[in-house]
């Protein structure tokens, strides 16, 4: 191990992540002011409803595309869909789930809410882990719905009538990104309930309810919304191809559970699974806090292809914990 790597492994990635998140937040929400736009196929919740954004979420465009009749989907239009998907996958494969841990504005806001709670000295709530894990399967249902509902606009399933265009982007309607992120550019219009049609009214009311849950939930439970995020489910399909990887050497693991304690999304396997090498699970957001709290040298590693990025070392562990114990 060279000295640069040693120095990196002794640092706190959480601090780096904190500043990186701020930078990413500014770029994605205000990038337009600097005439920056990194694309509309981002695998992260940079909301289209924000005016001068520096890039936007793939899900809106994807839902739009799914609304095309099958006939058109399998014609020339299909190429556009495939290009969109390929761009999304390309963005994702490059950085894997670090999109969630380092970039996603909704994730960042949740982390800020957690910071606020800690500052106020309010404790987190405890809950039954198995129940919560079962609840988190909801994200797959949401993913299925955000594909199937738009499809039912352009096509008729089982002879049922086609849905009208108010059903166009069902997930966006209930996504807290739509209601919360425009607030940062001074746009409060998304908080309104839309009475123009029954469907829209139900969706906007639902959206407000989810927004309420988002704030309440993430105040008592770290990264509460992420457990239900269909983007995370969508990404997970391609996660094995990700170039950044979180790797575990089970032989070095003592199953002390430090990583599980630190994990904001409560992935148990990170501590208990000693057989898998690739330890990225569907809820993982690649924040690498687990690496920070692992005292066993080389047990947990983040790598970009073969290049080691960050690795657990016992020296780094003791240094970081010492800082923490001294109130830093």
């Amino acid at each position: 191990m060279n000295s640069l790597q040693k120095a990196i492994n002794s640092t706190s990635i959480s601090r780096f992540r904190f500043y990186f998140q701020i930078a990413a937040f500014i770029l994605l929400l205000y990038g337009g002011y600097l005439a920056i736009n990194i694309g509309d196929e981002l695998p992260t919740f940079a909301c289209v409803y924000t005016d001068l954004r520096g890039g936007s979420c793939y899900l809106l465009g994807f839902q739009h595309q799914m609304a095309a009749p099958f006939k058109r989907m399998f014609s020339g239009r299909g190429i556009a869909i495939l290009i969109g998907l390929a761009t999304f996958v390309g963005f994702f494969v490059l950085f894997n789930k670090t999109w969630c841990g380092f970039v996603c504005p909704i994730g960042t806001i949740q982390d800020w809410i957690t910071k606020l709670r800690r500052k106020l000295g309010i404790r987190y709530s405890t809950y039954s882990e198995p129940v919560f894990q079962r609840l988190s399967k909801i994200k797959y249902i949401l993913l299925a719905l955000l594909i199937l509902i738009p499809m039912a606009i352009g096509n008729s399933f089982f002879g049922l009538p086609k849905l009208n265009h108010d059903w166009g982007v069902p997930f966006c309607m209930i996504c807290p990104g739509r209601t919360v992120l425009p607030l940062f550019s001074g746009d409060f219009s998304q908080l309104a309930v839309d009475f123009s049609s029954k469907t829209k009214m139900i969706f906007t009311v639902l959206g407000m309810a989810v927004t309420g849950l988002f704030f309440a939930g993430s105040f008592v439970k770290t990264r509460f919304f992420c457990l239900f995020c269909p983007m995370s489910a969508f990404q997970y399909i391609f996660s094995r191809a990700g170039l950044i990887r979180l790797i575990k050497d089970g032989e070095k693991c003592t199953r002390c559970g430090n990583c599980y304690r630190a994990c904001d999304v409560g992935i148990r396997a990170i501590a208990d699974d000693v057989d898998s090498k690739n330890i990225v699970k569907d809820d993982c957001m690649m924040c690498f806090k687990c690496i920070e709290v692992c005292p066993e040298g080389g047990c947990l590693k983040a790598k970009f292809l073969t290049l080691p990025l960050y690795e657990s070392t016992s020296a780094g562990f003791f240094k970081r914990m010492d800082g923490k114990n001294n109130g830093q």
Partner: protein
Amino acid sequence: MDNEQLRRVRKTTRLHLAMEAEETLQRIEDFPDKPAAMNYFYSMFRDTYIGTPALPMAKKIIATMCMQVPLELILAADAIPLRLCSGANAYDQIGAEFMPSKSCPVVKATIGMLHVNQTLWGNSLRSIVIPTTCDQKKKAIELLGDMGYPIYTLEMPSSKDSDRARFYWQEAVKQFAIDLQKFTGNRITTKKVQAAIAKIADAAGLFRKLYELRRSTPPLILGTDLFLVNNAYFIDDIDRWRQAVATLIAELEERRENKVSATNRQAQRILFTGSPPIFPNFKVPILVEQSGGIIVADETCSSTRLFSDSVAYDEAGLNDIVPAIADRYLKPSTCPCLTPNSDRLRKLVTMARETGADGVIYQALSGCLPYEMEQKLVNQTLAEKGIPMLYIETDYSPEDMGQLSTRVEAFIESLKARNKKKIKTK
């Protein structure tokens, strides 16, 4: 027993104890080329076992009878943690009065020690904390309570994998933290717990360095010396201990520079596991190192297991720190009281590979059923990996020394022969 008789028994027992301790220390010091920094530990044990014991009377003592007791909390309550587990044959014989003759000598000796020294503690002993680990310790809770000792039962689950077990233990530790405040009259605050965690983490950091130096090639320190160093942690003041160990590490690092080895190059590298060697019962480790072996690592609760893990919490509040402390004591534990205990098997295989051990010596103190019963699985697992193991059943009495030394020597000779063959076939 009336006071007069008890005083007589105490006097003779202390004489026996002093002889036992001196014998063990002599045999350790007989090894050539000891690091000078070891003298601190030799004299510390001499002072403790020979002559009248000096208790840290000024402070409140929270005694423990197992490594599962969270020391961080005891330190945070401004009390002195003191591990009572005894390795003395003299006390074992006294304890035989209270427990069946076939029961574990560690528990027997500890009960014997507490029986003999009943009047010595005075007001400073606030509590003896006994986790509900093995059956013998569980029953010791009742026996010692009957003697009039302030016993605290720390409820521990017999399994660690489920969330149920984890929460149960976390609740037990939380309650322990609350009760500690009552025993000591001191409040446990976040700041104090953090300071205590930092202290113990520092000790663990030092231990890790020592572990590296011990397993390096050639080994820089005898395993017996290391057992002594780690045993000292039971009873020594943690700040003094850290200082002494830091000095030892500095000296060992110097030795590494100068290529001084603790033993000859043919010494067979041994991984020691099983029932804990507790001073003065270092019979087996000393035999191993006298017979041409060197203990490069151990997997016992009186040594490596004490330090191999450290507390990591996420939020700086007692609501997160106390459960984090609880987790550190349960989740990585490889105590044979837990079932399943597959982590111990995994750990042994990893340690054997990491330390380049030629063989494993498994000590079971007769009566220590969990270790006796786990022997078969351990043997099987190691055999699968091609690591030879010697199983030794012994106790605190010196009677089986002759028989043991023959077996240990034969085992080490067989390892040597095996290695020669390996080199030839290469």
